[in-house]
């Protein structure tokens, strides 16, 4: 299973990139599983997550081809 991952704002700076592709060798994985693949640190309390551009949480079950975004709290425009 492959997912596309995107980072925004300060998290993009911290990850050193704006996006990446992540492959799982199993067919099911949660957002929490994905985070532990992309970072060695625990997922910060404040980080928000969206799957396919809808807000969700770290228990969300991912599907092949999903776009997962991690970002800090929004500040508005």
């Amino acid at each position: 299973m492959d997912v596309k991952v995107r980072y925004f704002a300060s998290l993009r700076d911290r990850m050193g990139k704006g996006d990446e592709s992540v492959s799982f060798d199993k067919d099911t994985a949660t957002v929490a599983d994905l985070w532990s693949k992309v970072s060695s640190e625990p997922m910060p309390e404040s980080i928000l997550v969206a799957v396919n551009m809808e807000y969700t949480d770290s228990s969300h079950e991912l599907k092949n081809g999903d776009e997962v975004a991690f970002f800090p709290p929004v500040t508005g425009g």
Partner: protein
Amino acid sequence: MKVFITKDALDPYKEILDYENTALPAGKHGGVVSFVGTMRDFNDGQDVNAMDLDYYPGMTERHIERVIQEASDEWDVMDALVVHRVGKMVPTDPIVLVAVWSAHRKDSFDACRYIINYLKESAPFWKCEVTTSGEKHWVEHNSEDPGAAARKGLKKSA
């Protein structure tokens, strides 16, 4: 309804007129309420000389469109236009335009206020400020209303 996000300089009133001339039937709307937000040269008491606004292409537009739809369900809205600038900008630059056309004033005001409140408090934008001392920092919360995102029920990951 139109939502447009751009890195280019924003000419808000030209956007209103262009949209009015192309998308709206003539002679039917009673009036238009607009809000034009301009970059200030201070924030939280600190001088700011530039801002770099980040957004999530696709998601930001989708969520703004949804909020316009919410406003249209709640009030009698004939049409609405949102244009938002992103990327690098300096004080006095227009940042955002919200325009709402309606047959009734009250509805235009209420809907316009609802949409701009969403944009300013909860829309997927992230501000990076550059102070006059050259310091660059991501704004941690919206200084106008830090609790707004929480109140809107945005879920935090556990």
